[in-house]
């Protein structure tokens, strides 16, 4: 009767591919050579897109931009685990997710240049526009999952957020609902160790982000977020579990934000250089390359070819975006309501 233990939890961590390209064969997801190459090529493409965006910003051709450098494995690994019919709710740093899901790169450039037309979501693609108020996209994903469950559609919903996002009430209310209704959601936290200048330990006192799932009655797992194979496997498993009615999963991708928070930020004000250097060595592209090489899937020539192809695609996207005529000022009246109100009609007339 006295003091008794009534519940116990064990938080797991998944690592498959280490910094030296060594893998745990027992855990490597079964992927064809082509699939591995596609995976690697998306890592490279995202990196090149990201670098280009940073340049465009420096040249003043786009506005403030949040770099995803260092988080490629977390984004590509997870997005590749989703099917086209699944629903994706990104945060604001997920260029890699948009690219992997087939969202046009030139639209991303157009959007970041301050043109809302870039966020027109192509029909047939179930990805939400990016979400800037931190964590607020989480309940949207939960609602979409409720709808999918009600319609008996076999879809999983993936929602992305950062370590900072886990502090918001939206995170709590969303995950709690997902637990109560056993919804097909995969909660993907990219714990990149920083929320602008606030380090992970000051964001929450819990040892891991993954363990927060147990507050909601479902499992959480931490994965090496710079290990694209581990992220892919964990997400694939969670997506399957979701579709099989097993309910939600929280995946903590343990990774790092290599760049400044955004182009308006100066991380040197608050972030120790050594930490940055330490993480640069864990580069997700590098270790994947070493792994591919061992499998004879990688060569200098191949690398050059992939980079050239990616650069060409990014050039193309940039050109295409710049070629778009500026929006008609009257465009701002178009989408506030389905149809113009009396007042908007007057305002438009006098515009």
């Amino acid at each position, binding site marked *: 009767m006295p003091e008794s233990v009534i519940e116990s939890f064990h938080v797991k961590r998944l690592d498959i591919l280490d910094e030296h390209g060594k893998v745990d064969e027992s855990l490597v997801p079964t992927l064809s050579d082509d699939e591995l190459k596609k995976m690697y090529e998306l890592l490279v493409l995202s990196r090149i897109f990201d670098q280009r965006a940073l340049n465009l910003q420096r040249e003043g051709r786009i506005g403030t931009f949040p770099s995803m450098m260092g988080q490629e494995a977390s984004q590509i690994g997870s997005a590749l685990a989703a099917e086209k019919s699944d*629903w994706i*709710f990104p945060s604001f740093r997920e260029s890699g997710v948009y690219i992997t899901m087939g969202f046009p790169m030139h639209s991303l450039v157009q959007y970041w240049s301050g043109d*809302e*037309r870039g*966020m*027109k*979501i192509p*029909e047939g693609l179930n990805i*939400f*526009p990016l*979400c800037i*108020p931190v964590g*607020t996209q*989480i*309940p*949207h*994903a*939960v*609602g*979409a*999952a*409720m*709808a*999918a*469950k*009600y*319609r008996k559609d076999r879809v999983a919903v993936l929602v992305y957020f950062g370590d900072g996002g886990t502090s918001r*009430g*939206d995170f*709590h*209310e*969303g995950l*709690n*609902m997902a637990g*109560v209704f056993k919804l097909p959601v995969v909660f993907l936290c990219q714990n990149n160790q920083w929320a602008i200048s606030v380090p992970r330990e000051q964001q929450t006192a819990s040892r891991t982000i993954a363990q927060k799932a147990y507050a909601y009655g479902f499992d959480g797992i931490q994965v090496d977020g710079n290990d694209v194979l581990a992220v892919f496997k964990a997400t694939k498993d969670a997506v399957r579990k979701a579709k099989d009615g097993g309910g939600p999963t929280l995946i903590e991708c343990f990774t790092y934000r290599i760049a400044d928070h955004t182009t308006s930020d100066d991380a040197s004000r608050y972030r120790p250089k050594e930490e940055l250097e330490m993480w640069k060595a864990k580069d997700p592209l590098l270790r994947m390359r070493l792994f591919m090489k061992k499998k004879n899937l990688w060569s200098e020539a191949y690398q050059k070819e992939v980079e050239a192809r990616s650069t060409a695609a990014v050039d193309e996207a940039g050109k295409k975006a710049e070629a778009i005529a500026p929006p008609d000022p009257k465009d701002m009246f178009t*989408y*506030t*309501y*389905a149809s113009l*109100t*009396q*007042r*908007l009609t*007057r305002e438009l007339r006098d515009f």
Partner: protein
Amino acid sequence: MATVNMVQALNLALREEMDRDKDVVVLGEDVGKDGGVFRVTDGLFARFGPERVIDTPLAETGIVGAAVGMAAYGLKPVVEIQFMGFIYAAIDQLFSHAARIRARSRGRFTGSLVIRTPYGSGIKALEHHSESTEALFCQMPGVKVVVPSSPRIAKGLLLSAIRDPDPVLFLEPTRLYRLIKEDLPDAEYTIPLGKARIAREGKDVTVIAWGSMLHRTLQAVEGFDAEVIDLMTLNPFDEEAVLQSAKKTGRVVVVHEAPATCGLGAEISATIAEHAMLHLKAPIVRVTGYDVVLPLPKLEDYYLPSIEKIRKGIETVLKY
């Protein structure tokens, strides 16, 4: 032909629309087995089951946020917030997302959802159970705000709200829930959003009100040749109807229970002062609640616009 009060009328609207359209789902706190604390969703749980009449955890942000996702997916969520005083935690989701997802996604996704909530004072309730902050929501582009003033109107407006492609905040005056009974036509009918209603024709003065204040106003205008406008949709409100009547009578009184400052009366008055000024014979008078923290039941009646205060307002503008 059924004779019903507003609670029953709203319940009928929900039931009929859910029968008609299986994309319509209801969610909120205690809307299921309990049928809602005011019984507006009574019987829906038994009829449509827990997948369509969803008792949620106690989480207003999450409820409205989830509704945004449901609407994007293609459902027509009808959220119940238990009292307007508890809607503030949902404002972020309503303003930042429901109101903007159409614009943000360039029309690919819409925030086609309804948030129903009991509102207003006059039922001697606890703190936070008598809020009337409708103007907060009229300010946000992308949001529509509707207030019914009778059972028949409530049913017609709720059907329109559910079918509307934009997010609608549907405010239900608690004082009227069981105060009035009305006959409902058997045939389906809707009342368009964005249109006001002349509740009473008149020549000397225009009095604009909505919800429970409309009834006080109709009592207050006895003996005056007053035109009474029931605004019904607060945002976007029917400027044309308001301006037309203001130009006709040249005298305007706006009545609402919210405090004067930045209440909807201010917008109505400003619209008239901008577009009908030359037709005015008198100042535009607002008869409203005071700019104070809403008092508890013992002082509630002193806070609210009374019939006397409304009459005083009318007499003031008629002096000119």
